[in-house]
């Protein structure tokens, strides 16, 4: 462990020197650089402030002003500040989630950055998520895998194995229910957690391309293939696999069920590992596997939401902003900010190294080698905002009242015809 740490520090120092070399060759940056961040949770906030401090050290003449806005607040405030009082750099999310601002001409086209070899070669895997209308509108700075997090100790107690297909998945669930526990914890109060379930069930049932066509409004919600996804979902619901009253809980409030051993699985993003560890679960108790195959022959695809940096179109100091974007995606910075002490997620730069953490390693391997179907962002980032809202409400209702499915799908179909036009 110690030697790895030393090695990564050495690598970091080396890379920092090369970066220092390249930027020294360009002209020195000056003026003001206003950065708006939505990284309001303690660890991400400290990470970002450290990144900015390192950037400042390289550009001492630059006057950097950082504003951190609460993550949920940010989602509504971005509309106001992009039009009225734009910063030079702002955080946001990839894929369709950036479309309203791209369409309104509020994000700067940064395709020039993506033509630079440094970025073009090393960030190729996320290029698609940053592209709208053939241009790139920002750079990613982190992403993370989704998957089935589970209580390894309970699996061992019940003599279960990680499920590789749908039948095993259901059989595991039956065994867990028979032992008096619930199969899955989930809190759907804020809806998006149900969107994660839909993502996986639909991608496993009908494949990535179908899923993306559905998100793009090309397929009817009353299509039989969509109904098949819900039929699969219903098998788990009818079994009583999900915790009761999930519609009352946030995702954090659903964590204790897993910690106390009342529920065994959590389909979640990797950010759930930190609070589970904080609550006292050790790596011997907690493990992770890829969501199992449902329809044999459908290529596996994954959710890997990407968080991004953008330059508002009305920014004052775009030159410094571009330099900051280059800095954030550089291999060394990516290694540093995504390591276990900071964000604890996956670096977007192919040249950076993944921190030595079992979940990050497994997740990285899964996304890079075992996701041939494609990588989705997340339901509420791939589908347009309005459709995401209506549909996730429908998913929540379906999970609580599966008998209403026909009415829910009819409602979603009406919404589709209005939203996509």
């Amino acid at each position, binding site marked *: 462990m110690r030697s790895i740490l030393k090695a990564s520090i050495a690598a970091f120092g080396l890379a920092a020197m090369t970066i220092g070399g390249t930027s020294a060759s360009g002209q020195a940056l000056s003026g003001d650089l206003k950065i708006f961040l939505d990284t309001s949770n303690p660890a991400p906030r400290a990470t970002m402030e450290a990144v900015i401090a390192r950037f400042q050290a390289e550009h001492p003449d630059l006057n950097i002003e950082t504003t951190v806005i609460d993550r949920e607040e940010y989602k509504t405030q971005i509309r106001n500040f992009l039009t009225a009082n734009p910063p030079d750099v702002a955080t946001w999310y990839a894929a369709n989630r950036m479309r309203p601002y791209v369409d309104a001409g509020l994000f700067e086209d940064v395709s020039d950055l993506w033509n630079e070899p440094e970025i073009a070669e090393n960030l190729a895997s996320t290029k698609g998520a940053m592209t709208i209308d053939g241009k790139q509108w920002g750079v990613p700075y982190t992403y993370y895998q989704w998957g089935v997090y589970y209580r390894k100790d309970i699996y061992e107690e019940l003599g279960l194995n990680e499920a590789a297909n749908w039948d095993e998945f259901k059989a595991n669930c039956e065994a867990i229910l028979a032992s008096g526990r619930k199969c899955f914890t989930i809190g759907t109060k804020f809806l998006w957690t149900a969107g994660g379930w839909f993502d996986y069930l639909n991608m496993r049932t009908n494949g990535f391309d179908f899923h993306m066509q559905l998100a793009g409004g090309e397929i009817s919600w009353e299509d039989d293939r969509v109904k098949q996804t819900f039929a699969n979902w219903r098998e788990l619901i009818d079994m009583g696999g999900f915790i009761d009253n999930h519609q009352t809980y946030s995702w954090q409030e659903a964590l204790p069920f897993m910690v106390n051993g009342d529920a065994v699985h959590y389909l979640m993003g990797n950010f759930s590992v930190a609070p589970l560890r904080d609550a006292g679960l050790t790596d011997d108790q907690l493990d992770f596997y890829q969501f199992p195959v449902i329809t044999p022959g459908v290529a596996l695809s994954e959710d890997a939401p990407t968080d991004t940096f953008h330059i508002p179109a009305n920014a004052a100091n775009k030159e410094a902003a571009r330099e900051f974007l280059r800095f954030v995606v550089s291999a060394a910075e990516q290694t540093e900010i995504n390591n276990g002490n900071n964000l604890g997620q996956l670096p977007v730069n192919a040249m950076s190294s993944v921190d030595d953490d079992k979940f990050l390693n497994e997740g990285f391997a899964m996304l890079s080698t075992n996701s041939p179907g494609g990588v989705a962002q997340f339901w509420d980032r791939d589908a347009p905002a*309005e459709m995401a809202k209506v549909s996730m409400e429908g998913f929540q209702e379906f999970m609580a009242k599966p008998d209403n499915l026909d009415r829910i799908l009819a409602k979603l179909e009406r919404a589709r015809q209005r939203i996509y036009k």
Partner: protein
Amino acid sequence: MSESSLQDVRAVNGGGSWFHRNQIAITPWLFLAPGVLFFIFYVISPIFQSFNVSLYEWDGLGEAEYIGLQNYQDLYWEFVDRDAFFVSLKNNVIWLFLYLLAIPAGLMIALFLNQNVWGIRLYKSLFFFPFVISQVVVGLVFTWFYDPTFGLLNTIIGWVGLGPINVLGDERFVTYGIIAAGLWPQTAYCMILYLTGLNAVDPEQVEAGRLDGARGWKMLWHVIIPQLKPATFIAFVVTIIGALRSFDLISIMTQGGPFGSSRVLAFYMFEVALSEYGFRMGYGAAIAVVLFLIMLCFIAYFLWSMWKEERGAR
């Protein structure tokens, strides 16, 4: 010297300029002007702006597209289909009726507390306490109270052998659960209004009523309540306004859920136009217009009754 300055003063008073001749008539308008300007700018003009925006399809960022009454047509279809708009409207009506319970409840508590025993001021303050704490705190306290696994409510009904109920997770109970939370501070507010009203009750009339043999309910109904009419009117106004503004509790306790069944119009408007996924400014404005029309009925009634009162007083 002094004579000439006197003449100057007279010249000013009877002076030639229009302003000086009409000073008395103009002055009140000048004093009113700042208030009137702000009222026009911040209250009246946004009403007309909302009407205007509701005729457009607009995401709040790009170009607005004129679509006529399309938004209202969509609302109509949502109503017919018993979709979100219907649910919100229905909940608004439930709120309006049930929230009025705060008035009799406040009156009962006020009558109960309107006595002279040792420490009554402390009791009064304790009953008034819920109105002092923020709505956010009220919402959180009730959310925990209703919690299906750890909440006090389920512990209590468990003692009498009733099964656990998930008040905020069940679309049949959720609105009533939130209204109950809202009634807690609102009752305290009505109570304080009635307590001050009760101080103004004429003891001689009470005495006269007692001589005529009125007591108990008769006394309350025929002697006390008529004298509390001004307090009742104010309590009615603030309760109606409170019911129509029932946004904060819903936002804190359920976010409009589960599956949108606790929404009211104000929250639906916010969700559609301004929330994380909301980009339909025109549609939100159309909901706001509907909400405004509902409020207009009450505003008209209030203005009319106040006007009647004024005329009666003259």
